[in-house]
């Protein structure tokens, strides 16, 4: 995406998830198709992990008619409600209230579905986030609030924008457990998310997972990241990459061979290349689509 965006062919804004993959993977691995997630502007990872079609996603990012949202949402609003993906969101903090709604729906209808919202460290300062923690607590909803703390709210470090203590500790103020998790460690995320999701499913109520992680690319594509220390991103890629760490551990433990991993990488690269090629070649939306789907019926 980084390379393709640089060619100028992709319209609008794109916010890349690179570096944070362990979080979406570790959390969504526990979710069923009938669970819902509400994502952020940085939603490609969440969409893939929740099972959205990659070709549909790519076509959407290119604004094409065959995109998941018929070219009308783009990267920032990528969604597939049928797969329980309530959309990437252009408003930070827009997801947590919708998460409460999902939880309320499950509770009223008596199902064991859960809702998960993803919010950045920046978004965690929005009133919506804090109100949602409170509402989910007083209504005892099956909601998990995942904070992806990559240390930056756009260009501002969390050292400046977040008051002194872990974001997870805000949950304590609402009588909800909040746990800090290393967002680079798939197994740590998987375990903690599993505990939170099982708890919610069993009626144990909401919880907060603060996954501390790093992003490699800018807030948006085109952001030169001059606010980061020189060499910071290179150092992180070298020492804290979640994919490298995962590969190292599973091969060292003998669970998976390096060959297996290479094969997966090749398959994924081929999938992505094909998706890009198809998206580029795909037709634009019909001009009449401008006026469709504002309402179910007007």
């Amino acid at each position: 995406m980084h390379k393709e965006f640089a060619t100028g062919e992709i319209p609008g804004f794109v916010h890349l998830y690179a570096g944070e993959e362990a979080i979406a993977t570790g959390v969504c691995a526990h979710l069923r198709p009938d669970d819902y997630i509400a994502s952020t502007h940085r939603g490609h990872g969440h969409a893939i992990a929740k099972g959205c079609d990659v070709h549909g996603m790519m076509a959407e990012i290119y604004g094409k008619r065959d995109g998941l949202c018929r070219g009308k949402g783009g990267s920032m609003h990528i969604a597939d409600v049928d797969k329980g993906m309530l959309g990437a969101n252009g408003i930070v903090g827009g997801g947590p209230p919708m998460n409460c709604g999902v939880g309320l729906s499950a509770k009223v209808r008596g199902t064991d579905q859960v809702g998960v919202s993803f919010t950045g460290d920046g978004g965690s300062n929005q009133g919506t986030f804090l109100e949602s923690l409170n509402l989910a607590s007083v209504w005892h909803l099956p909601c998990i609030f995942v904070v992806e703390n990559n240390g930056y709210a756009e260009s501002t470090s969390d050292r400046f924008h977040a008051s002194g203590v872990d974001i997870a500790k805000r949950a304590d103020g609402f009588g909800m457990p909040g746990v800090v998790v290393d967002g680079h460690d798939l197994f740590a995320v998987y375990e903690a998310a599993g505990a939170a999701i099982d708890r919610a499913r069993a009626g144990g109520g909401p919880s907060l997972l603060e996954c501390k992680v790093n992003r490699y690319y800018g807030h948006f594509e085109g952001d030169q990241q001059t606010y980061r220390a020189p060499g910071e991103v290179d150092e992180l890629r070298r020492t804290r990459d979640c994919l490298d760490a995962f590969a190292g551990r599973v091969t060292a433990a003998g669970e998976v061979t390096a060959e297996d991993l290479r094969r997966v990488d090749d398959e994924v690269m081929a999938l992505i290349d094909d998706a890009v090629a198809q998206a580029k070649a795909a037709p634009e939306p019909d001009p009449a689509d401008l006026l469709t789907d504002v309402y179910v019926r007007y």
Partner: protein
Amino acid sequence: MISVGVVANPASGRDVRRLVTGASVFDNAEKGAMVHRLMAGLGAAGVDRVVMMPAGSGVSQSLHRHLSGRTGHLAAQRLPELDVLDMALCEDARDSAAAVRAMAERQVAAIVVLGGDGTHRVVAAHCGDIPLCALSTGTNNAFPELREATVAGMATGLVATGRLGGDGLVRRAKRFRVGVNGDAVVDSALVDVAVTADRWVGSRALWRVEAISEALVAFASPSAVGLSAVAGAVDPVPRAAPFGLYLSLAPPQRAPRVVAVALAPGLVTEVGVLEARRVDPGQVVALAARAGCLALDGEREVELGPADRVTVRLVPGPLVIDVDAVMAGASRLQLLDQATTRRADDGNHRPTGPGHQGAAPGLVPHDADHPRVRGAGAQGVRHRRDPRVRPPVCG
């Protein structure tokens, strides 16, 4: 210049047991408050300086809020200077290790640790013979105590300034030295070593007892929480005893003995015990080779493959200040009076009092300077205003 080191590890909130059990930890703001209280106790006991590991995530902020907000009675307390180590933080266990090494270089007379078993483990591996005051900051710890920090500060200060000390007041704790594949990986544990079938370190915490096959505990109290309690239910081992205990565990239905223990806060579980036997100091115990994780002091630390061989040996551990014993000793020796009035009026500190080497409990050699000897009878027993108490130095 008497210095005491303080390690207040801000890595709170990283405990998934808050989701799966009823555990809770002191938050970072509370830790900052504890350090402030600790400093009050250290200062009252005559410690001049606190050397502190930089503590992020709100601990330092909270501490500075307390320090700058002192009014009324609190403002009259003498506090040591606060010297925060100038070091870059990695925000993991390496920070505590580096801080302790720096404190040793500065020749601190003691180190107070505010943290859980994990933090104490790291500090103990690097502190040599510097005595530790071990303060718990959560409900799920076996090694450090839950204790009010002001009093802990006073006790630590009495030891650090040399007014009290020795066997019975500063005890040698036990430690397990752990090797994987010979000495290929060496680590240590202060409380317990366990092998769990959990495949990955993951969120570190151990809460699934059914996955644990073998464990060694340095001390075993039936009133503890965690693996130490399992051993304590079977064969209690006091902290002061030289030996430890080895346990082999199995699912309750397959075990000849089953005990119900508080394995974690809010969680009472049945644990099946196949075997329990004492482990002597220096004895090498080889654990069965199997894939899984090695957990040290309740946290999964090392992922093991089926061919990895683990050996464990009980060795001497860190020196730990017994706060109760120190304060009892201080009371008996009327050091608490002494400690606050002992300074000469020129402000110079002269260590005095019944000695810092092994004051035998219950017997206090008379000291000519001791006011009880020096005509205290003429004055009667009365409190003298501490001449060191003066308005706090600003800044």
